[in-house]
């Protein structure tokens, strides 16, 4: 018998130990702990979910956020007000413009400035286009999470047109940094409205395509219907917002119920979609309808765009008077709010950011109890979070 090298001996001992460990986890009632993330294809970012499994069934699961914390709340304290929008663009990176709006509205509230009507309308158009850019990716990504690769490519193809329109106005595809206290940086470019309406028609046909390709598919229905049901009371108790809440049957939308003066949602005719089931299918379906509804909002606002200035009278050096303000808007992922404390300086004294995804994923441990491993992915995908929006 040949002598083993030290490395071989160690490898042998280690392999035995690994076998024994797996055996223990498999054979005791304790179950096996499966660690999804922080590096995992399903979490599109660095969310970590630890799940204790009994076979393929989840006994308990826990979410560990914080791997992408960038300290935005602290960073805002050392910046002036115009500089802050650059930062907070990156919270929900798929619908960047929507991040700027509540912060600007809070600052406007403290300064007692109102944006002129044209600025409010364009702001709402861009707000809704950010929603479309965000939700289109959700609809495409849904396919990948459930194993169908093709819808993603359609989503990225059609989102590009929306991003082109956003870029035409703001100069930035992803991070517009366009909203200003008291209005907007610039007016719309020439010919933009006609192009945008064509893009909106395209997005509607994309929604039809997704409805055929995914929502009408038996396997998709079998995978999502009745999976991860969140009743309305639970949804409210965990502070869910946005489409996740409306999919549980709660008819609540800040665009309609928030009484926000800086946006022009009151001036158009649109509908808040709800679904009574509260399962994964309901959440996906509500988002599909919201994408369509957003294109109608943009269409109507483009038709009835008032003329006039796009900037109110604002001092050259912006100093926000002392006080506190909290403004929450209905962002693509749910309710997003900024609690702004000013001491009268060039920059905010303290900013607390309430982001939708952070509250939305708080329900994950509750809803994952007893589901199967593939359902973890379905539920996480249908709850729809952006890592930047969880960790800030």
């Amino acid at each position, binding site marked *: 018998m040949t002598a083993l090298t030290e490395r071989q001996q160690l*490898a042998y001992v*280690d*392999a035995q*130990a*690994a*076998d024994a460990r*797996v055996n223990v986890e498999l054979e005791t009632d304790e179950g*096996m702990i*499966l*660690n999804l993330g922080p590096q*995992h*294809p*399903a979490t599109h970012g660095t969310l970590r979910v630890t799940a204790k499994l009994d076979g*393929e069934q989840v006994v308990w699961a826990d979410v560990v956020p914080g791997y992408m914390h960038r300290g935005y709340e602290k960073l805002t304290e050392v910046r002036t007000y115009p500089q802050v929008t650059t930062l907070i663009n990156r919270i929900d990176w798929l619908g960047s413009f929507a991040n700027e709006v509540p912060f600007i509205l809070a600052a406007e509230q403290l300064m007692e400035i109102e944006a002129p009507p044209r600025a409010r309308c364009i702001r709402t158009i861009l707000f809704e286009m950010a929603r479309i850019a965000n939700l289109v990716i959700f609809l495409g990504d849904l*396919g*990948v*999470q*459930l*194993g*169908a*690769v*093709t819808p993603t*490519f*359609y989503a990225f*193809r059609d989102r590009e047109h929306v991003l082109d329109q956003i870029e035409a106005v703001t100069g930035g595809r992803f991070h517009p940094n366009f909203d200003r206290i008291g209005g907007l940086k610039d007016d719309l470019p020439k010919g933009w409205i006609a192009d945008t309406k064509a893009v909106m028609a395209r997005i509607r046909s994309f929604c039809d395509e997704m409805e055929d*390709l*995914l929502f009408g*598919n038996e*396997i*998709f229905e*079998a*995978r999502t219907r009745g999976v991860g049901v969140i009743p309305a009371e639970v949804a409210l108790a965990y502070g869910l917002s946005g489409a996740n809440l409306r999919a549980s049957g709660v008819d609540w939308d800040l665009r309609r119920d928030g009484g926000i003066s800086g946006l022009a949602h009151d001036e158009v005719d649109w509908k808040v979609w709800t679904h009574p089931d509260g399962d994964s299918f309901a959440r996906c379906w509500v988002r599909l309808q919201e994408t369509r509804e957003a294109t109608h909002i943009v269409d109507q606002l483009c038709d009835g765009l008032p003329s006039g200035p796009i900037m109110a009278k604002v001092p050259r050096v912006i100093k926000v008077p002392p006080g506190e303000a909290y403004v929450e808007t209905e962002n693509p992922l749910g309710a997003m709010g900024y609690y702004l404390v000013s001491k009268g300086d060039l920059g905010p004294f303290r900013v607390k950011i309430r982001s939708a995804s952070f509250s939305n994923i708080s329900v994950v441990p509750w809803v994952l109890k007893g589901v*199967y*491993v*593939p*359902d*973890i*992915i379905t539920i996480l995908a249908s709850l729809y979070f952006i890592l930047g929006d969880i960790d800030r």
Partner: protein
Amino acid sequence: MSSLVLAVELAWWQQTVLRTIGVLAAVLLPAGTLVYVFLFKMMSFMQSRLGPMEAGPYGSMQLLAEVGKWIQKEDIIPWRADRKLFAMAPYIVVMTVFLTYVGVPFGPDAWFADLDVGIFYILAVSSISVLGILIAGWSSANKYSLLGGLRAAGQLIAYELPMVLAVVGVVIQAGTLNLQGIVAAQHEGAIFGWDGIGNPFILTQFVGFLIFLVALQAELTQTPFDMPVAESELVSGYMTEYSGMRFLLFFIAEFASAGAFAAVAATLFLGGWALPGVDLDADYMNVLGPIVLLAKIMLVAFLVFWVRFTYPRFREDQLQQLAWKVLIPLSLVNILATMALKVAY
């Protein structure tokens, strides 16, 4: 059984060399074609993109580039892995594909082994790949691999049954287990007395063909049955820890077995290497036959990959329900109907 290869008398070692080259070509050619035509090009066109365009005309050399890349990569074996089993697993999986091709006839004299129980042999060796996958899943010392390996085992065993039962219908109709015999039966048969195009069993065994296709999809672990490698759940399932050459072997096995099963399906249901109206014993069929079979392989593989790029995946329990509650009863009914009609006509 004779030991002819292409109807030429050769020494034993010459035959062995020819067969080795033949099997290699038979495995790698369809596999490469499937990867390029379906995975690179058809998938891209379905997803409104072009796919590889740089390497060679229309990216036709892309596959060589990919293979070159994989061969260069470091072969990483995890520290806690069971080294011997880990290294062995991909070879077991690839070996099954080679063994499957051995039983498939390509022409009147172009075959590797003309077995009396040909289809039985093929179904038997094709299930060896489960062992390789289980070994890969277990020896990687990774929980994702373990889950993937166990899922693969459960799935492949569940879908072996409907596949075998679907084949039974064909065997009853042909009256033989020998694949050459099945080809001849389709060529010379008649559909309820009409013998214009022979009797390709896809027409008279249509239910069997559908069951076979679904089971095929599951055996190949292609979407919607790709839970063993479910990317969004298990990273890459039993392949998670593999890299370099060993990953390439798994990759080849995936597409080569798609080709092998498509060849079996083509032989069982589409008339194999024969075409309606040709002379089965003619020498030129030894050249034309493989081409005809390759065309039919592409046809079946097109269906497989079309579904793969379109559907989302099932959940593990839904997959088992489909096998046990739908496919198996349906294939049993199919066998009964085939028997009744066989006796009646």
